[in-house]
């Protein structure tokens, strides 16, 4: 009985919420639904331009639905249990493709991959890459004048400067660094982790926190991408932040898209995947997603990209190896780092 006043108070409010949210677009016949991460669809992200370009080509309606990040993308699909609106899922990386394949939610793309170009080449029947970048240690030139030129030199810690890295348990770049060291040092990786631990100021749960500490001046080095310096040149007009080039090579992250089993029924899906590998899509990527294009562009890249580190050696585990060993390797990393 006593809850009555509060219930009375709440019902109109809930009704108001209902009205506010009632706007939901129904699926038209000529619609392609793409699930992606949200910085892709931000107004400064690739999404708006991609939408315009593809809609002009197909005469259809391209609809983006976005979630927080690439990992959340796959989890959303799992939560939907295969019964999804998505025709295309765009934005998870090669660390997750093995697990994504196992879910059985994805169908072979069936398109030609001739236009695709990523270091080391690409050959996969389900996943189509749309951009890539290498992980790199980005540093502040105002603090560090003579950056190390190899991972070994970096780990030797001659100058005592600190770095902010990400946790492989919660972050894709964090996982990337761990795999990088594992690829370089194999069974000796724990020694490398131990040396790394001495250089680490702190470990953050995500890329944003680490990069925030870096741009705030709290730490002169951060684990990020070879493409990060271009952002500061283009957006802020400064070349103060640079990436270190390591002679042993850099670990790579490739972002991919795939069509769902439901999406395979929609002819627009294949059309979109093809479009994605061509200049209509690839021209947009570098200066909106700040990654390297994974296909042909119609014009040269912004000069800001010219000065970037271009690793001569690209390091990458195949997705199956990552999927099988991630838990064990993470435990090994954790064991050393929490000493």
């Amino acid at each position: 009985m006593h809850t009555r006043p509060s219930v009375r108070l709440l019902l109109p409010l809930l009704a108001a919420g209902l009205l506010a949210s009632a706007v939901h677009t129904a699926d038209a016949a000529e619609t392609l639904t793409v699930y992606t991460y949200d910085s892709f669809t931000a107004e400064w992200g690739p999404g708006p331009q991609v939408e315009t370009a593809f809609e002009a080509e197909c005469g259809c309606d391209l609809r983006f639905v976005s979630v927080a990040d690439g990992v959340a993308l796959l989890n959303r699909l799992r939560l939907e249990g295969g019964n999804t609106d998505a025709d295309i899922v765009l934005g998870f990386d090669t660390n997750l493709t093995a697990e994504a394949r196992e879910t059985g939610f994805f169908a072979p793309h069936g398109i030609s991959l001739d236009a695709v170009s990523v270091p080391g080449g690409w050959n996969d029947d389900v996943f189509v890459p749309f951009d890539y970048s290498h992980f790199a240690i980005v540093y502040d030139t105002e603090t560090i004048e003579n950056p190390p030129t190899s991972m070994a030199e970096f780990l030797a810690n001659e100058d005592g400067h600190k770095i902010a890295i990400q946790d492989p348990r919660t972050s894709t770049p964090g996982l990337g660094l761990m795999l990088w060291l594992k690829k370089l040092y194999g069974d000796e990786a724990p020694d490398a982790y131990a040396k790394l631990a001495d250089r680490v100021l702190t470990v953050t749960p995500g890329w944003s926190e680490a990069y925030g500490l870096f741009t705030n001046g709290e730490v002169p080095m951060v684990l990020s991408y070879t493409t990060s310096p271009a952002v500061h040149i283009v957006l802020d007009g400064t070349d103060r932040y640079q990436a270190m080039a390591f002679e042993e090579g850099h670990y790579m992250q490739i972002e991919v898209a795939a069509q769902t089993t439901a999406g395979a029924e929609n002819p627009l899906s294949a059309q979109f995947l093809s479009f994605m590998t061509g200049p209509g899509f690839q021209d947009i990527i570098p200066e909106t997603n700040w990654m390297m294009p994974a296909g042909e562009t119609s014009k040269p890249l912004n000069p800001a990209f010219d000065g970037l580190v271009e690793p001569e050696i690209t390091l990458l585990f195949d997705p199956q190896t990552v999927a099988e060993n991630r838990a064990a390797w993470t435990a090994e990393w954790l064991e050393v780092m929490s000493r």
Partner: protein
Amino acid sequence: MLAALCLVAVGALVVQAGGAGGAGAVLTDPVVWRIVRFTLWQAFWSTVLSVGLALPVAIAITRMADGPVRRAVLALFALPLALPQIVAVLGVVALYGQRGFVTGLAERAGFDPPSIYGLTGILIAHTFFNLPLAARIMHGALALVPAEYERLSAQLGMGALARFRLIEWPAMRPAAAGAAALVFMLCVTSFAVVLILGGGPRATTLEVALYQALTFDFDIVRAVVLTLLQLAVTIGAVALFAFAGGSVEAGMTISAGASRRFAGDRPAGAILGGALTLMAVLYVGAPFVAILASGLASDLTDLIVQPRVRRAMLTSLGLGLCAAALAVGLAYALSRGAAEMAAGRRFSGRPAFTETVLTSAPSLILVVPPIVIAAGWFIALRTVTNVYDAAPYLVITVNAAMAMPFAARLIHPAMLAAEERNGRLCAHLGLAGMARWRLVTWPVLRAPLVAALAFALALSLGDLGVIALFGSEQVQTMPYLIMQRMGAYRTQDAAGLALILMVMTMALMLAAEHFARRSRTMVTEGSSE
């Protein structure tokens, strides 16, 4: 209802995962237990520090004359909870970090301040978040002390210590225990703060393991087991606080402005209290100044005209208001139930088990990560309806559930006092239902209800957890937008948005405090002399 909210969620998750096979593996993992130990350890010290320091601050605030200064302090104290953790952490780092402002001052003064990466940093950030919260809750309890007590203590010539021991401490003890339980739970679930300022994996809470289980591993059974483990260890700790708390004693009537608060003739005490409050304000305010400074460096006018930003502001407000209203409604119903039980035992003696459960159990929802509840509901609902159409309701419901314990802490003491004062009279006059609400309950509870609403609103405005799962083109809130910009090299935009969020929250808090104060003056005018 709250229990149902959780049960459906957990049930759906377990059904989805097809049993609890992974439970054993989780419970025998030594890493998990090491994490449990650290989680409890940091939460304990954070709580002791936050509540311990909030105690004198709450007393000092209560003794302050009511006016714009006190209202501003109280509004400021509601802000930290509305900040996305990462924004707060950057604010803290800007002050106490390697290149921090305070660090610089200390070095110039010849000190060698310790690095904040470690327990120090965790404690600094957690007190920043929780000292104001605890101070507000305890101030709420102190404000219910009859004005006559102040006068009596002055006449009897009590010193500050005697006054604390004989008046203030007994009045705030239940609130202090409640605040401690709340703060403890918040710190148990703290995640980004602990990892970043703790300096890495050495400082890891269960929440990190939970996050890992839910994201990369998508191991729902493990997530549920970890949640239950987190719940279990927290219940143990919180029970301790509850027993230490005792209950509000009977025999005092709240005088709704029957006599003017006696300002006191203790210049020494006033100066000390003023100094303490000032220190707390500086401590809580300084990170905001850092946020303000970096926010002003961004292009605010450009941000404001962006349709997405404006839409996010409106979405945040709408969802926040609904969630806050729901939270206050729930808290009201719950406090009402508990107050009636208290009336049943005539406000004396130990509260019955059910009453204790009713007052403290709902807070436990704080220990269940919103993401677990959201995921559970997602699975439960997807067979029934399009989950994304239901997303706003889920966000509102989960946010309301998260804000409810805070609202309850503010409403419960006032409700108890009001029930004691008016319960019998109402029963006698046959006042019930709307008439009772309008004539008796609303005038007395208006101020705490509005304060609770404002607080719940601030909290919902700052929420990120639930939205991250359901966020889509339709539902984007301010914290979501902040995280989005931070994740895409737009740190300046993020700083600007954080500033906008901060100003929004502050304005709402001040409006609410103003409203609550107006109602208080009206009561006073009715019974002056």
